């Protein structure tokens, strides 16, 4: 036997709407119905023009981030059974411009990801890419950054972050977490370059440790922790630079 859920979706059609408006739907659901399935059910049977992003249905592609009753979540990892007896209100991911319905423009986040060079940069005295070489890493060295490498770039932490809401120049939780992740990788030699971004006012120092990013992260990455560890690194870097001034 299926229960019924009232789902209100914030709509926005740029070619005809001046601002977003609400549209409500009623869907039948079972214990297994995810929000993503419910939205697809709406699109297939009730409102074919409803737009939203999705791909993998298993919380690894990071496409279906959206606001569920004001909380940023992955639609594929959100189940209607957890909202039994309530209504659901779905909005596009907060803090990003809305393109259409639940589709947001993530280009600012993507640009920041590119800027921080989220890949291993070989150390200067080591063989460069293309040259044959094994990079050995011990389990202890892996553990230093493993948790922070679980990021799927879904943008949920940016929607959770009030500092990013207020100041879009802020590098933001995921980018700063990935900086820490690569800086702490024993195979990487790009720390000096990346620290220039970390040390800015718009780097780790824009974070006031609200901690909601870590609360919302669907992969348990804990960006707030990575940023505080980044602050410690930046403070060390600051002290060292005071003595290196004469260089």
């Amino acid at each position, binding site marked *: 036997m299926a229960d019924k859920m009232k789902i209100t979706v914030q709509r*926005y059609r*740029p*070619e005809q709407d001046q*601002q*977003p408006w609400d549209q409500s739907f009623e869907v039948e659901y079972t214990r297994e119905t995810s929000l993503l399935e419910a939205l697809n059910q709406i699109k297939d049977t009730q409102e074919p023009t409803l737009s939203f992003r999705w791909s993998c249905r298993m919380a690894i592609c990071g496409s279906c981030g959206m606001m569920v009753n*004001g909380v940023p979540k992955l639609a594929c990892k959100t189940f209607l059974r957890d909202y039994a007896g309530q209504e659901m209100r779905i909005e596009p991911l*907060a*803090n990003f*411009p*809305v*393109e259409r319905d639940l589709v947001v*423009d993530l280009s600012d986040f993507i640009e920041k990801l590119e800027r921080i060079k989220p890949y291993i940069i070989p150390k200067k005295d080591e063989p460069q890419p293309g040259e044959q070489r094994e990079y050995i890493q011990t*389990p*202890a060295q*892996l*553990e*230093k950054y493993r*948790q922070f490498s679980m990021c799927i770039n879904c943008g949920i932490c940016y929607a959770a972050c*009030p500092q990013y*809401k*207020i100041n879009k120049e802020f590098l933001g939780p995921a980018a700063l977490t990935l900086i820490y992740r690569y800086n702490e990788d024993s195979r990487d030699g790009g720390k000096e370059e990346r620290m220039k971004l970390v040390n800015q006012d718009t780097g780790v120092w824009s974070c*006031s*440790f*609200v*901690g*909601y990013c*870590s*609360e919302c992260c669907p992969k348990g990455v*804990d960006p*707030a*922790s990575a940023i*505080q*560890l980044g*602050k*410690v690194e930046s403070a060390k870097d600051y002290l060292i630079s005071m003595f290196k001034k004469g260089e």
Partner: protein
Amino acid sequence: MTMDLDKSTRKPFVRPVEASWWTKKGFYLAYMLREGTCLLVLAFVLEMLGLYIMTALHITDIQHMNQAGLESLQSYIKFLGHPVMIAFNVLVLIAVLYHAFTWFPLMPKATRVIIKDRKSGLYKLLEGKYLVALLVLAFVATTAAGIIFFYYPQLIAKLLTPLGLFEDALKGLFGSKGLPF
């Protein structure tokens, strides 16, 4: 409606940022309360600065136990004991305790200790609860010591005097006059 496929209809809608964003969610409200505790901390610092300035102004009177000159210092201490000030200090205490118990759980996030697990042989992160426990322990010890020291100074003296060892050290610590007992 026919659409010209070459023409972009992009018109991103940017949602406005409201100054009241922190009132919209319990989590944000708790954060703002945490940040707000600093106002009461500052007020208490000023209260203590007043006491310290009064002491510095009347330092000669204190040294010579000049009763007439001591009166304004005593009236400031009396003012601190006024029910309104006591109520205010209770408020400060609540704020500071709220600060403390939002501060401790966040500390492990800024530290990382990797240990090797004896049983499994795997490397893992030392759990933050140990650091939190240590901080809470420090908090309890300091608060208890503070209360005992200020309310029962004789108790500490009684505990230490039989040993005879600390008498000179205590005198050095407490200034030229030593303890008044």
